[in-house]
């Protein structure tokens, strides 16, 4: 079976600026990968590159066995790549429900199911995007990604700035998605431990390169190594 | 430094373009024809051009043996005196023409006139009607008309028909002249002007002004608006607002209902009363032949308006001078010929040049828009004045 995602020797950045260098990684179908590293090491750029938002300099990105480096962003989305960007990027002049509907693509995920999963959204369906709280926006961003019925979801700090209660709810959701829904997930998260708890694999980036690639559990069990990789020595 | 090479090339080009020559035989008379081919005034300029071309086609060869006429056409781009003056200057200095004619717009002619005085250049206005232009140059003559010629008799006539009249004219010199001429005659005849508005020249929508007229409930509205889309637009506004139904008569000089624009105005124009020197519907034989020739040349559905006649008659006068002088043009002798000019069979009827003022002497007709044979026409219902000299110059003789 082909991997859900395979990056080989990827060099990418913004314009002439190179942020990622020689990134090679693969992610199996129904797999989950945490992307860790300090700020500014290229985690967000990595997800953005998979989505197609950066300048691609070299290497290849295969999605389910097909090269997609020249595929436009919207086609990648239609092929089944879902994206929860770092700033959430809710459309402010759309209502909550419209935010979901514009992303809808046929499949198991429907408006009803998203509302069932995230009941808070159902209550606020008529609110405009810019009237939502941070937590609601975050849930909406996840819901919006699901509406596209993706097979691979790229989550960029989905828990950032959320109240602990909401974090718990979202984590449960995430967990459920990974285990029950046959989704492949790539998760960028500041909270390394959280990320490691819910994922199977992990990569740690530094200065745009992969420093570490292995099972999440292993790294979680070695706090010293984790600290040295993620904070500093 | 590549600039060097480029500049050399540019200079070379410059010289080539400028040097390409004007080798003209002694017997060739050069006539500069200025009209408007681009910009907002192009429709009227096109009419002028059609008259000019029609004359050249029909009569371009009626010259003494050995004499040839070369015409140089220039575009003044609209009511654009600066450009007009510049191209007139170029015609004189560079092209060395011996006549200047054409010129649609009064401001343009007013700008050119002083130049012709300095250069001793016979300048025959085919249209520009500004009443005072002849005073600006002794080499200026006019075969078109003045607004006083149309509006003064119209004012006299109106005073017998209406009590209260509203005037609405374009805010530039011809509009002011029309307003003044009409008002003077109308008041002398005992009428009352209940309101007067001057409408900006560049104006897309006349409805607000006409609404104001309607709200004042006069017996008639007198209007001078430059012929063309503006006149059509004000006619539309008149109809749309129902001024006709409110019993307000629409009157003015013939610019309002030029023969070429008339079909575009539609039925609202029916019943509009104008005073003018030319109508395509005039039943003089010379006119019938003229209209037929025009239609043959430009299409059955088109009618020649006063612009066409103006240009046609201007060229007729130029050719008359050339024939009289056997192709050897001397400005002062040319002006002598012009001052004595008489043409009994212009399409508009008999015309002549007033030797005193070098302005046109012609008949003025009262016309009403009627439907004739399925098309709208300015039917001449009355001759208001025969062999009329410009009334303004009678009132303001040159000291």
């Amino acid at each position: 079976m082909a991997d859900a995602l395979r990056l080989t020797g990827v060099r990418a950045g913004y314009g002439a600026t190179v942020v990622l260098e020689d990134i090679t990684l693969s992610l199996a179908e129904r797999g989950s990968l945490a992307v860790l590293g300090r700020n500014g090491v290229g985690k967000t750029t990595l997800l953005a590159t998979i989505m197609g938002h950066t300048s691609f300099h070299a290497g290849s990105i295969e999605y389910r066995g097909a090269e997609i480096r020249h595929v436009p962003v919207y086609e990648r989305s239609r092929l089944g790549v879902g994206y929860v960007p770092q700033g959430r990027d809710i459309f402010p002049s759309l209502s909550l429900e419209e935010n979901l509907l514009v992303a809808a693509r046929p499949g198991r995920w429907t408006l009803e199911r998203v509302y069932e999963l995230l009941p808070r959204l159902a209550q606020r369906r008529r609110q405009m995007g810019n009237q939502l709280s941070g937590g609601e926006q975050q849930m909406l961003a996840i819901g919006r990604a699901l509406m596209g019925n993706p097979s691979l979801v790229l989550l960029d700090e989905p828990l950032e700035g959320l109240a602990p209660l909401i974090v718990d709810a979202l984590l449960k959701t995430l967990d459920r998605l990974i285990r029950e829904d046959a989704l492949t997930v790539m998760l960028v998260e500041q909270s390394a431990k959280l990320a490691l708890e819910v994922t199977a694999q992990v990569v740690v980036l530094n200065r745009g390169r992969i420093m570490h690639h292995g099972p999440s559990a292993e790294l979680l069990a070695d706090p010293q190594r984790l600290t040295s990789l993620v904070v500093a020595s | 430094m590549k600039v060097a090479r480029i500049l050399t090339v540019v200079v070379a080009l410059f010289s080539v373009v400028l040097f390409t020559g004007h080798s003209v035989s002694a017997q060739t008379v050069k006539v500069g024809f200025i009209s408007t081919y681009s910009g907002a005034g192009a429709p009227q300029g096109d009419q002028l051009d059609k008259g000019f071309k029609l004359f050249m086609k029909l009569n371009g060869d009626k010259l003494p043996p050995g004499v040839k006429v070369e015409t140089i056409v220039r575009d003044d781009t609209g009511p654009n005196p600066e450009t007009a003056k510049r191209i007139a200057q170029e015609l004189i200095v560079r092209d060395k023409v011996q006549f200047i004619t054409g010129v649609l717009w009064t401001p343009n002619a007013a700008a050119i006139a002083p130049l012709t005085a300095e250069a001793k250049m016979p300048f025959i206005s085919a249209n520009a009607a500004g009443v005072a232009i002849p005073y600006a140059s002794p080499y200026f003559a006019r075969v078109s008309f003045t607004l006083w010629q149309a509006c003064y008799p119209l004012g006299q006539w109106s005073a017998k028909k209406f009590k209260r009249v509203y005037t609405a004219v374009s805010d530039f010199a011809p509009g002011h002249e029309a307003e003044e001429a009409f008002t003077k005659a109308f008041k002398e005849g005992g009428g009352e002007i209940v309101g007067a508005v001057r409408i900006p020249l560049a104006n897309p929508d006349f409805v607000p002004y006409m609404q104001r007229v309607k709200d004042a409930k006069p017996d008639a509205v007198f209007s001078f608006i430059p012929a063309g889309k503006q006149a059509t637009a004000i006619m539309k506004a008149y109809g749309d607002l129902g001024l006709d139904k409110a019993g307000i008569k629409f009157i003015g000089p013939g610019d309002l209902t030029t023969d070429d624009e008339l079909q575009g105005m539609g039925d609202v124009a029916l019943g509009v009363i104008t005073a003018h020197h030319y109508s395509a519907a005039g039943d003089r034989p010379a006119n019938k032949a003229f209209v037929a020739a025009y239609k043959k040349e430009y299409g059955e559905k088109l009618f020649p308006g006063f612009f066409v006649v103006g240009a046609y008659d201007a060229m007729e006068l130029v050719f008359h001078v050339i024939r009289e002088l056997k192709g050897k043009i001397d400005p002062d002798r040319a002006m002598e010929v012009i001052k004595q000019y008489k043409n009994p069979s212009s399409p508009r009827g008999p015309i002549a040049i007033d030797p005193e003022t070098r302005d046109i002497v012609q008949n003025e007709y009262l016309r009403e828009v009627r439907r004739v044979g399925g098309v709208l026409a300015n039917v001449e219902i009355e001759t208001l004045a025969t062999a009329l000299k410009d009334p303004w110059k009678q009132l303001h003789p040159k000291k």
Partner: protein
Amino acid sequence: MTHTALETRALCKSFGALTVADQIDFRLETGIRHALIGPNGAGKTTFVNMLTGRLAPSSGQVLLGGGDVTRLSQEARVKRGLGRTFQINTLFRGMTVLDNVALGVAERQRVGGRPWRPASAYAHVRDEAVDLLRTFGLETDARRRVVDLPYGKQRLVEIAIALGLQPTVLLLDEPAAGVPSLESGRILDALAQLPAHIAIMIIEHDMDLVFRFAQRITVLVQGQVLREGPPAEIADDPRVHQAYLGERRG
């Protein structure tokens, strides 16, 4: 006795209901290398923009060399000795490397607005710019246009421009961002050579660089100062770890 080069007092900034800077008290001592770190969205950029005058604070004060500059324009602050580099290259891309630096030098020497004598007649401006380029090993690139330069060198030009202003306080916003690792050594060398008397605040994600370079570190989290101290203390602070590793509180 140390002298405070740059200071903020209770600096706040809110956009509507969102508070991005919350009572920030910050001191930058003369001649000190001071790093500002913090997770994404901590408010570092907002803070820097308030320091430089691109953004007006909602409340609080900014002091430069002891004087209140809260209400002063960017230009006025630069004249009082505040220089900065940008996170993303902000260069005069179509101009030569020399002119990029000379423009700044000319402003500092108060000749930038002289309209009559040719620029090349101001030899002292050009010489100073050339000297600066030499310190960064860019002298051979002086006549090249910035856009034709590799990215690493462009970052150096960025720093050279700021130094040309002879600042007393220099804000370096991620000086090594986006530079391929092969070229980043050069940037580090350049930073190491910066004149000692300048107070430098560096905003940087690269902890290697921060710990190698900084004498003091301020950690900014959610618009507030979480911790301030020498690198050793910061590295061991559990709260900092938590902020970075995301151990769940409680």
